[in-house]
């Protein structure tokens, strides 16, 4: 938690389309305020960024139309904590298949879109992880499947043998939706990243 003398950092939620409102509720439970990001001006002064679930093709199209592709990329590379779920993970992957599409390439993974099948195959599955509490599960919704993990990428959790929670530096990516579950430890993990990053930064004037 941030000390009393400073306000908690504001987390930006990419709000072009998707379940950004769920992320706002999940982060509020950790005392973190959020700001919806729809234009480049919304990126100023953030202490963290969330790329939510939704449709990655819709988000890509709007990133271009809004002139947000470049400014968002700069923010993502600035070193602040980033949390990407489902479609957000697809936007950050190094390589996207089925079909191939453009991405930021910040996470050295290959993802296959809808790699676990259509909505009929969606559901909550057990996770195997050395860093999450025993019994932690993840809800996968038309989820991307990580088929290759490159150097510099740490696998934090698996579903069966598939990596489903990965980290590369300040970027945390999940194939599933921790924001949909009550008090999910992965949201707590990101909230701790944001607070730690915030207290390492010089306090803002005023």
């Amino acid at each position: 938690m941030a000390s009393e003398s400073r306000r908690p950092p504001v987390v930006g939620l990419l709000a072009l389309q998707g379940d950004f409102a769920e992320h706002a509720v999940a982060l509020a439970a950790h005392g973190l305020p959020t700001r919806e990001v729809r234009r480049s001006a919304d990126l100023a002064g953030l202490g963290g960024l969330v790329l939510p679930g939704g449709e990655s093709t819709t988000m890509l199209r709007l990133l271009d139309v809004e002139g947000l592709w470049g400014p968002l990329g700069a923010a993502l590379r600035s070193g602040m904590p980033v949390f990407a779920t489902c479609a957000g993970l697809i936007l950050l992957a190094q390589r996207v298949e089925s079909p191939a599409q453009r991405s930021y390439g910040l996470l050295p993974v290959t993802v296959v879109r809808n790699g676990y099948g259509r909505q009929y195959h969606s559901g909550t599955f057990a996770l195997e992880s050395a860093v999450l509490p025993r019994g932690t599960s993840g809800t996968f919704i038309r989820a991307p499947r990580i088929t290759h993990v490159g150097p510099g990428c740490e696998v934090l959790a698996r579903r069966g043998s598939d990596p489903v929670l990965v980290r590369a530096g300040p970027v945390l990516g999940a194939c599933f939706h921790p924001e949909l579950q009550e008090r999910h430890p992965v949201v707590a993990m990101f909230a701790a990243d944001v607070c730690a990053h915030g207290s390492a930064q010089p306090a803002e004037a005023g």
Partner: protein
Amino acid sequence: MTQKHKQQVPGFTAEEVVSKIGFCKQLEGGVIMDVVDAEQARIAEEAGACAVMALERVPADIRKHGGVARASDPEMIAAIQKAVSIPVMAKVRIGHFVEAQMLEAMEVDCIDESEVLTPADEQFHVDKRRFRTPFVCGCRDLGEALRRIHEGAAMIRTKGEAGTGNVVEAVRHMRAVTSQIRELRGADDKALEKKASELRVPVELVAWVAENQKLPVPNFSAGGVATPADAALMMQLGAEAVFVGSGIFKSGNPAIRARAIVRAVTHCNDPKVLVEVSKGLGEPMVGIDITTLAPQERLAGRGI
């Protein structure tokens, strides 16, 4: 304390809340477009649709051609599933659970039990709890919304008056739902019991809505949306996403209009963006003044 209820929706298992309602939440802030073939589906996806609704005839044509409107040819739905990577929805007639079984067997991502098709059962809707696939249903007021949710709908949309290009009914239905939710604020146990009996739903559902001041499932809008301004209007009135039926592919330039409506939903509170996206869209679909429709021509009265 809304947080307390996040995992609890009366009548839904915790797993259904995250997997069925969770799927519908992924569509929020998006536009779901009616398409009749793979080519239109590709145009919709390219324009930024968050899902497509596969059907043989858009509502405006169902109106024009008359006859019995049924679920679409599986071959046509399969061609659309193959053509795009975004979710594909399809419609079944009200109460036609076999059409729904067939769509589930095809792994359609979401089933719309729709008043736009000719109802198959005048007494019962599909028992949506028996399906793994999430359902969306239309409503005109809070009672219809809660009855559909009680039957297992994971998403609600206004009925509006489909195929008219006239947003007035969608506005009426959205306002009815939100004002009836507001009226429940602070209701005591006796008032909740009375309301539940009046609406013919369990009191737990009415109590959830009274306490949380919203529906327990996403509340989308449909029926008569034809312009970016219509879509933004529905969003500002409280819709979490918008279905556009005939409004896109019955207009002069579908690709440009589709893109404009997608952007209008994202920036629904920014009139400057709405001005920009509304320029030079070409001809909108020709609308119908709803007061000129005979009662039997109105679709919204089906399936109450």
